[in-house]
């Protein structure tokens, strides 16, 4: 099919864009300075605008990358997290750990209030033992 006049226009205008843009790349620094002066364009001002937008994009990209990394790390931790054991089992396990307290005299267990402890108290002790590395997360599983 023969190219119409309008097709020719499109091709010529596109070719012009490419050819004349390439000419910009081959301008020497002094020629470029000269043209900018002629066009009353301040290179510092123009550069500041273009640079500012590019740097905003880079900052946004880095923020997003950091967020993604955090999310990815979070989901990894979530996957590895073991469901906390039931309070009754925790209570049972801690009571059975007398030998541990005997073997480690510097380790002691005391409650502030009375002899009766709440579920939250036992779970708090369990968390402390976990942090100290004296029990493992899966130690709470039912035998």
């Amino acid at each position, binding site marked *: *099919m023969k*190219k119409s*006049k*309008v*097709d*020719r*226009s*499109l*091709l*010529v*205008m*596109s*070719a*012009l*864009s*490419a*050819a*004349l*843009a390439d*000419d*910009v*790349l081959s*301008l020497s*620094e002094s020629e*470029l*300075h000269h*043209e*900018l002066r002629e*066009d009353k*364009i301040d*290179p*510092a001002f*123009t*550069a*500041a*605008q*273009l*640079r500012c*937008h*590019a*740097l905003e*994009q*880079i900052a946004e*990209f*880095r923020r997003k990358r950091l967020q993604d990394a955090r999310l990815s790390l979070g989901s990894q931790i979530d996957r590895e997290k073991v469901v906390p054991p039931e309070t009754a089992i925790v209570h049972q396990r801690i009571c059975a750990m007398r030998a541990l307290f005997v073997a480690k005299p510097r380790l002691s267990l005391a409650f502030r209030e009375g002899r009766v402890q709440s579920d939250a108290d036992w779970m708090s002790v369990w968390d402390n033992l976990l942090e100290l590395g004296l029990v493992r997360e899966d130690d709470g599983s039912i035998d």
Partner: protein
Amino acid sequence: MESNGRYGPPATIEAICSTIQSLTDLEWSRIGKFAGEHLWGTDFQSPDALINETVSRFLAGSRTWPTGVAFLPCFCNAMKSIANGERGLIRHDYEFQVSDLVPPDIESDNARNDPVVGDASKVDSAESCVLREERRQAAAADLERLEDFFKNDDEVKWVLMGIEDGLSAADVQAISGMSKTIYETARTRLRRGRARLFRTGGMS
């Protein structure tokens, strides 16, 4: 875009970021001017918009910078490619070869699509056909305006003809009898005149 190994391994995104951060004022001005020249026929409203699009593609990794080449030409080449893509690659749509009319061999992986029915994935919507037609008409009007602007400048007309026919500078000089300096001055006149006419070469 995959980097050709010939030009070195692709730079990391961080290397691209720090190179962008370290561009000088004059380099930014050149990039802005280059982008301005490529605005014609695209939906980008300013050089800034084309530059931003290019930066975002580099950051997304859909464009790479082979470390064996200088950053600025690589960045400009990416801008050029994006602008060309924006113009819609219209030239392929209405042309097909006689060999395309051979009945398609459905058993072959190389089977051609029926040029009359076309490739289903490439069927254009009515909207895109209208848009393309508008762009064609706009191009015709713009070229007419440009030719009218330079109607009394024979040297620029030679340059225009050379670009249209894909001739080298030497060929145009040989045909027209222009010296290298006259040719280059005419070409600059064409670029500067076009930029003023369509406000493409300038920067905001």
